[in-house]
């Protein structure tokens, strides 16, 4: 009984953890190419879920999700082109205020469009009560969908950055923007692309997880804080470490319900965030070597 409960919480933790990881990776992609911490990152997850739900009333599920991802990518690119592109070497604080402003803007627009109601996509396969049983531990098929699709996102991103020409150009831009420009790489387009990419993975994760967590116009802020915590915990700019950090946060939160009132769950992220910023701002896995190997 104890073990079963343990694994039940573990699975829940992993599910939330993958979403935090994806948001954290989104932070890192944008941070690596621009040095900007984009607090609107959580809104992409919200947009992905909400747009997919709306489109699903007209379109089959996979097409609705694909369209939601593409639309959110376009919104991400548009945000970059409207608010970020024309700024010349903006101060960090100014940038943070701008991205928080963008997130408020997106949230208000979502409120106008969709109201306050909570929505979700249907389960991809089965329904709320169907479950696989692994030795007594009941796992919803949607959890498997979420874990599976998020794994595919992480692996594809890795392959993209490592083995494609475009991925190499983005890494060059992250490593040294001036040097990349001197090689002829259109660095501004790479920045736009990084926003679109971060928006796209956030949107996909947001759509996939919505049957489990549900979604509404206001979920972005909380996710942004958790994604940021994960990015800091793993070490800003280090995407693979964000995956590990995402699982750590998800599992901690999940088990906290066991020993603390549920209300404290969201305080965990803030506590970790502040502790890390004070004690080890380079992250759990961050290195302090003389030259910084900024990479995805």
């Amino acid at each position: 009984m104890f073990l079963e409960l343990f694994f039940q919480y573990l699975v829940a933790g992993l599910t939330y953890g993958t979403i935090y990881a994806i948001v954290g990776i989104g932070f890192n992609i944008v941070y690596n190419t621009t040095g900007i911490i984009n607090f609107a990152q959580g809104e992409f997850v919200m947009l992905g879920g909400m747009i997919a739900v709306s489109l699903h009333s007209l379109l089959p599920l996979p097409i609705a999700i694909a369209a939601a991802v593409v639309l959110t990518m376009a919104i991400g690119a548009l945000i970059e082109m409207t608010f970020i592109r024309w700024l010349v070497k903006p101060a960090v604080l100014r940038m943070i205020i701008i991205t928080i402003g963008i997130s408020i803007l997106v949230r208000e627009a979502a409120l106008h469009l969709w109201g306050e109601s909570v929505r979700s996509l249907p389960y991809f396969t089965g329904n709320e009560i169907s479950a696989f049983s692994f030795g007594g531990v009941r796992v919803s098929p949607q959890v498997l969908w979420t874990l599976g699709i998020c794994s595919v996102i992480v692996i594809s991103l890795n392959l993209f950055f490592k083995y494609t020409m475009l991925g190499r150009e983005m890494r060059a831009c992250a490593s040294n923007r001036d040097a990349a420009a001197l090689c002829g790489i259109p660095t501004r387009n790479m920045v736009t692309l990084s926003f679109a990419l971060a928006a796209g993975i956030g949107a996909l994760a947001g759509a996939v997880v919505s049957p489990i967590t549900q979604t509404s116009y206001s979920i972005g802020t909380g996710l942004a804080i958790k994604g940021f915590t994960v990015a800091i915990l793993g070490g800003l700019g280090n995407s693979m470490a964000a995956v590990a950090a995402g699982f750590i946060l998800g599992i901690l939160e999940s088990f906290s319900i066991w020993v603390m009132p549920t209300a404290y769950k969201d305080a965990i992220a803030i506590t970790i965030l502040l502790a890390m910023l004070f004690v080890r701002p380079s992250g759990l896995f961050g290195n302090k070597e003389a030259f910084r190997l900024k990479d995805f």
Partner: protein
Amino acid sequence: MLRIRNLDAGYGSLSVLRHISLHVKQGEIVTIIGANGAGKTTLLKTVSGLLRPKSGEVLFRDKDIASLPPERIVFEGCSLVPEGRQVFAAMPVRENLLLGGYVQFKRGRSSEVKADLERVYGLFPVLRQREHQLAGTLSGGEQQMLAIGRAIMSRPSLIMLDEPSMGLAPLVVKGIFEIIGKLRDEGATVLLVEQNARSALRIANRGYVLETGRIIKDGDAADLLTDREIQRAYLGKDLDAEN
């Protein structure tokens, strides 16, 4: 090849370069010498597009490039080896060089990139040995070779180098200058910025002397080398002691 007329440039409201005029002809090595803070880097940043000039003309092969962004200027055939190497530290040597070949890829000459890579490895055999090593782990001299190699990969008609000898041991500096001479012999045109005035003037055809943002002297490198004022200010010769 390159002609600069009445160029003014700087950072924000700070103006650094005043009324700079100079030119580089096909097949020449032209050097710009000057003390630390004279504005040498600012000049190369402006020509390469990293910095917008406040006024003046930058004509490259008779085309005004003053308002183009850096990525377009490389495509025109004008390539900068920036101060402090600026290699992609987290990437292997080979990837650094291939990124240098990006321009050729985009020109639809990707079939030539392999041969260009071989040419760079021929010029700098040590880079072939270090092919799969991360650029950030190379020594200063090797990073400088990599930065030069990366610039060559774009097949530039003009290659500009910003203090390639900075922070390197004398023997390594000698090797780097030999390579620069070799590039010229193979038909490249070179604009070389240096604090190491002696070595620079020895391989250059002509030179300009930059002082606090103005060109105070120019002429054949050989003449500048024997110019008493320059010997005193830049070549560290104590003429009074000799007399």
